[in-house]
């Protein structure tokens, strides 16, 4: 592979990974803020979103540079296209981490209510999906990408259970409704994050073998 193109592609890979680790970190902090009622952590996540946004723009410029300077083809082209899409998805994960932190701030300001254990389990799955999707991207690992795709079904069904559970609690404890609605939002943000990790995994499949698997039922 031409050395200068290779150099620019490696640089892009590093930029994507850096952005990935930033949003992963933001997600972890937002969840910790919620679990441990730590206001300062939640604020840190919200303030840090501007840095994530700036990194997203830097990655996009890196992609634009490679397209303009090298006119990559085949596997190189698919990697740059995948990187552009993954970049958007990661930025959206960053936004959701920020939304999570905002819900945490509200819940911390109110008397505590129990956090459904399913939310913890769901958070663990989402974190694993994000990590796996990025590893799949960097290592061109199809098997890992498919693992992420399957994990999404599990997250969706957990979200459904949490919805039912919180709805039942709302009926039982109408005076907790506002907090329970916020808790439901937490579950919804996690579910959206899992969708974005799924998008990344789909882009990995496209990058590795050029196959578009979006909008297909998983099986």
């Amino acid at each position, binding site marked *: 592979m031409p*050395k*200068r*193109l290779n150099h620019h592609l490696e640089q892009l890979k590093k930029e994507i990974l850096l952005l990935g680790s930033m949003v992963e970190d933001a997600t972890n902090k937002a969840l910790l803020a919620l679990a441990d009622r730590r206001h300062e952590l939640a604020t840190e996540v919200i303030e840090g979103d501007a840095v994530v946004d700036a990194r997203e723009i830097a990655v996009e410029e890196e992609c634009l540079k490679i397209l303009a*300077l090298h*006119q990559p083809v085949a596997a190189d082209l698919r990697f740059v296209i995948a990187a552009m899409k993954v970049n958007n998805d990661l930025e959206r994960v960053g936004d959701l981490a920020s939304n999570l932190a905002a819900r945490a701030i509200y819940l911390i300001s109110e008397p505590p209510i129990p956090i459904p254990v399913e939310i913890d389990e769901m958070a663990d799955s989402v974190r694993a999906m994000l990590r796996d999707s990025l590893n799949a991207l960097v290592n061109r690992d199809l098997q890992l990408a498919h693992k992420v795709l399957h994990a999404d079904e599990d997250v969706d069904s957990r979200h459904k259970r949490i919805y039912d559970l919180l709805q039942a609690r709302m009926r039982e404890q109408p005076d907790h409704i506002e907090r329970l609605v916020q808790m439901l939002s937490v579950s919804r943000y996690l579910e959206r994050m899992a969708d974005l990790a799924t998008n990344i995994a789909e882009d990995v499949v496209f990058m590795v073998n050029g196959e578009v698997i979006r909008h297909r039922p998983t099986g």
Partner: protein
Amino acid sequence: MSALVEMRAFTVRYGSTLALDSIDLDLHAHRVTAVIGPAGAGKSTLLRALNRMNELVAVSSREGTIRLGGVDIHGGDIDPLALRRRVGMTFERPNPFPRSIFDNLAWGLSIHGVDDHVEARIEQALTRVGLWSLLADRLDRPARELSLGDQQRLCIARALVLEPEILLMDEPCSRLDPTSTARIEDLLFDLKTATTIVLVPHSLRQTSRVADDTVLLDAGTLIEAGSTEEMFTRPRRARTEAFVTGRFDV
């Protein structure tokens, strides 16, 4: 970042023809700079100004200054031959002498009076262009037996053996096949750690692939100069945009 080469109000005429019109340009060390533009833009003239090769054309005249490392290259105490050692050059057509591979490299050293470590210098120059392993055991063979691509790499080695500060390359790949072209392009990437390269590329695609900085000339006028990335993604001038997108209609 202070520039290695500073060109100020530099003008070249061939007889009554204006080849370069009051060019102000900085070239930076350890970068590959591409000089691009339509035919007759003044690309080769600009390249040849840097080692005063234009002076070999009897009807040429010049105004303005070029400073290399802060020193005026047209100063009274500058020997053009010594300048050409510091600013080496390769051409479109590989032009090895009808001598052995070894002699092709030893020649430059001998005319510049370098007689120490000749063999080591030759080995190093051939290694830098990736030819040493291929040619080490046949240095006595005629240089013109080599493929065109290898002849061009040999000519680059012949320039490098004098350890120039700047290497001028006038369309070094225009006569080469894609594989040899890719080899030379990779070579540019490696060479810039030790030298500074000013290149007239043979295509826009080559410009964007290899150059860190780009200078666009048209009819002897500098249209735009800047980082290649900027010139190929968001040029400042409409004429640059038109040229890099292939819509330059003049």
